[in-house]
């Protein structure tokens, strides 16, 4: 119940802050967007959430919604063949300027409505992301494309990357404005931090409007306390963990012992 109240409150906040920030085209209605929710709280019973975006756009535009974390640095282990038949870790793949979470949903496939240069400019779609990311070690562009494909598979398997077309609910246009609605299933794997939701309005192969807003994911209560203690006071955390385990072991031993487990 408390969680639902928080979600509703966060949705209201998100709706307030997600405003159009750029208008540069011939759209007759400014792009608007409302989303739940800009503050996702992680408590013990958190199992992911949902972020939906609702707003009004010009009837003649296509829409792209991108939800991503800030660019960062990632290191993953590469598997390869050793001795011709054994698969094991053979090295590390380093990626720079890469978001940990990247969700993209559009009314049509980005490559059908935007040229590559425009996709690159706004980092829309996996091909643009591939051009944006710095990877090492890679021998040549083909090698980069191969490992980027593996990276996408890894991220999609872990629910951290998502790219799909469709899934928007469009209502009939009224007075030159068309209401739209879409939603993302927010993964529980997404770590606490700040994320940015961006809605792009696309017309004639150009991004003509966009709106952005910050989405904050934060641990609260006991979850926050435990995570903080594990990180900042490892010795105390370790001692508490050990004493709890010893206590539990003895406790269960005593219970079973009384029950006639020993002879």
């Amino acid at each position: 119940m408390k969680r639902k109240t928080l979600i509703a409150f966060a949705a209201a906040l998100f709706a307030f802050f997600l405003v159009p920030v750029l208008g540069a085209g011939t759209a007759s209605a400014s792009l608007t967007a409302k989303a739940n929710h800009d503050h996702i709280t992680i408590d013990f019973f958190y199992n992911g959430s949902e972020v939906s975006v609702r707003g009004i756009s010009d009837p003649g535009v296509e829409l792209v919604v991108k939800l991503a974390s800030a660019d960062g640095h990632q290191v993953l282990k590469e598997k390869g063949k050793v001795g011709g038949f054994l698969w094991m870790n053979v090295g590390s793949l380093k990626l720079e300027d890469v978001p940990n979470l990247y969700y993209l949903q559009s009314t049509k496939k980005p490559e059908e409505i935007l040229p590559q240069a425009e996709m690159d400019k706004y980092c829309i779609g996996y091909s643009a992301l591939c051009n944006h990311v710095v990877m090492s070690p890679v021998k040549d562009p083909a090698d980069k494309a191969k490992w980027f494909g593996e990276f996408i598979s890894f991220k999609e398997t872990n629910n951290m990357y998502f790219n799909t077309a469709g899934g928007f609910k469009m209502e009939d246009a009224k007075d030159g404005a068309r209401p739209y609605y879409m939603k993302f299933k927010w993964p529980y794997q997404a770590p606490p931090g700040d994320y940015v939701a961006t809605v792009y309005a696309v017309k004639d192969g150009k991004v003509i409007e966009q709106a952005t807003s910050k989405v904050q994911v934060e641990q609260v209560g006991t979850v926050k306390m435990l995570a903080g203690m594990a990180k900042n006071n490892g010795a105390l955390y370790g001692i508490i963990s050990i004493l709890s385990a010893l206590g539990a072991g003895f406790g269960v031993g005593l219970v079973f012992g009384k029950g006639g487990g020993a002879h």
Partner: protein
Amino acid sequence: MHLYLPVALTSINVLIPVGLGLAVGLLSGLFGVGGGFLMTPLLIMFGIPSTVAAATDSNQIVAASTSGTYAHWKVGNVDFKMGLYLLVGGFTGGIAGVQGIKILQAMGNADFVIKMTYVLMLGLVGAYMLIESLYSMKKKTAAVSVEKPATVSSMGRFLASLPLQTRFEKSGVTHSAILPIFFGWVVGVLAAIMGVGGGFLMVPVMVYILRMPMHVVVGTSLFQILFTCIEVTFLQAYTNHSVDFTLAVLLLLGSTIGAQIGAVFGRKLKAEQLKIFLAVIVLAVTVKIIFELTTTPSLLLSLGGGH
């Protein structure tokens, strides 16, 4: 019902860790192994990052081995003297093993050595235990009426000639103190290289080299594992911040009870039966690792940190 794990940064159905704890705790109480070689890969399979899986498993083994040691101590199956000698060797061996891993990592072939050590040790230990146990069962059923006079092998004479001979009353054996310390050290080195507690190595050492009775082996192994895992839990929490207390509590809910059931059940089984069961499990894990090593993985990238 799902619970969020603050350090693993993931959500998990509570029945999964409780069920895993129960199953691995059962094996722990039954065979005197920590079960890390089973639990850590299972946790990774359910989405727990490898570093958190290994560290948290150590934490829950503290609970399971406390529960198991207590159950075995109540029935007089813990040789504390032998356990302490093995611990001395295990601690120093662990330090040496960690240094060895650092050298291998610098040379760039740590992963190959770790995997090969894992496969070879599991395969050899499992196969030897299985063959030996089947052979001794067969020998017993043959019911040889004429007992052969006890013969002392050259290895036996060599071991008896070592200095610092001491009597281990609980186990009913006499050995040089050097022997358990040395083999504890070897197991400590291998356990550190493989990133496991080493119970599945320590049990055969106690049975076949130190010639301890199987039921005392189980209790003494758990006693030794308890202290090893206390050390590992503290170091992991202090240096890597990778112990997930919430996950550990869920695991130990199952493992402490499982260890008790295992200890009770184990007393109803014969030593050979126990050894055969453990050998089969160890060999099954070996086959699984070989399968993983030789089959093209679905993903060619993974998070860093694990083996």
